[in-house]
């Protein structure tokens, strides 16, 4: 009897977990943005991100981010651009322009960290 209850409980749990996966996905999506600001990449990864920003973003935006083929990314040029907008631009690019999506190389948290860095003023 006890065993039966256990199985039943397991089945219920399995069904529930199937549904839960869906709701977890939406929960993550909802909470990702606020979490990103607090979830800093590791020190080692931060150094890699700064290198990526100056060297690779720098190919188009300039090593000092003063602009090039792409627009300037210095803090004063981004005053009216929210962090979320910048993070989305980094992750998804800007269709119809030369700005590519960096999603294959960056997590949501890392893009948000870079967006914060740009808003604060570069390293």
């Amino acid at each position, binding site marked *: 009897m006890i065993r039966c209850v256990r199985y039943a409980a397991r089945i219920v749990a399995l069904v529930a977990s199937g549904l839960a996966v869906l709701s977890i996905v939406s929960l993550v999506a909802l909470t990702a943005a606020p979490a990103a600001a607090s979830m800093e990449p590791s020190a080692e990864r931060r150094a890699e991100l700064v290198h990526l920003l100056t060297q690779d973003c720098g190919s188009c935006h300039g*090593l000092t981010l003063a602009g090039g083929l792409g627009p300037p990314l210095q803090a004063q040029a981004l005053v009216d651009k929210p962090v979320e907008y910048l993070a989305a631009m980094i992750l998804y690019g800007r269709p119809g322009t030369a700005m*590519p999506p960096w999603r294959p190389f960056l997590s949501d948290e890392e893009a948000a960290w870079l967006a914060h860095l740009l808003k604060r003023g570069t390293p």
Partner: protein
Amino acid sequence: MKPLTSAPNTQHQTDHLRLNVPRCCTGGLVLAALVTLLPMGAAAERGTGDLGIVVERAAGTLQLIETSGNTVLGRIEGLGDLSHASAVFSRDGRYAFVFGRDGGLSKVDLLASRLVKHIKQAGNSIGGAISQDGRLVAVSNYEPGGVRVFGAETLDLVADIPALYGTEGKTSKVIGLVDAPGNRFVFSLWDAGETWIADMSDPSRIGIQKFTGIGRNPYDALITPDGRYYIAGLFGEDGLALLDLWHLEAGVRRILPGYGKGEEKLPVYKMPHLEGWAVAGRRAFLPAVGRHEVLVVATDSWTEIGRIPVKGQPVFVMARPDGRQVWVNFAFPDNQHIQIFDTKTLAQVHALEPGPGVLHMEFEPRGEEVWVSVRDADRVDVYDTATFERKANLPAGKPSGIFLTARAHRIGL
């Protein structure tokens, strides 16, 4: 044994010193004075044909190099922001004109290893060219969009050509500036999709000829080594825009119009470069934008005759001066590789992995060695192009462009 070997060495050094001193000044006292006055070796009688510069992009410095012994002779500072810097040379091979990203234009004396003059001519620049007669240096600017032309002697402004387009008084970023026979400069407008020719044969009366509608977003251009064809690569659409400078009346025509038809272009993490080096014999080897391919084009018909699948998105496709090999480097995230292909069979001859951030390759004038900048390793490598053996490696701070004086005598470089 020792005395025997040391004696010829001493002799050798004495000879060397003697060689470096002008004949009229062989007196011991004069020699001493020269050495103190000119510690950089400016008094040395030497040619400049084996000299060159390596751009250290982060520090904004240049390394002065020589390719006979593959060594660094000096470092030149004070050139400003040198990210994406390039250079051209005076016809005597003595001076380098360096174009900085921040609009800086610098004139550097290679023999004296020093900066002669530095001006800030614009807010944001991408490259430059020197005129056929060697008297004018032109810079292509993003901000303010246009071309500015300076006297090579003094760097005084000779002409300002704003890249105005449309009806609202907007200016375009200018790319693909090259020199052409007839003391002309040819360049293209990124925002406007136009190619302009500026005839500088009379600098007081500059003639400008414009070709509109060449295609969306030309990103760079080359002129063939004979100075006849100007080819702009297009970022905004497939194909390239070709202008035959011998037949301007024919206008700009599109070549390779469908090289990526129906296929989705990959995101581009670094714009490819086009340079006259890409022409090998009767074939041109061009980087495909947003594709892992090098396009092979017949230079008589300008039609595609093949494609070479490569490791990543090509940035530079450079032909060895004899035209037998092309060396290809790649955009992020494949920029640790170099692939080398045979221009006749299109087969890969060799592949190298010098390290992340391979930014530029420059062949020595006759092609037996090639200099490679490896940005993230803070190193410049010199490879033997026959054995692919690394002959030298020199420390350099975030090296990017490498420019040898042999460019002084080539159209479009």
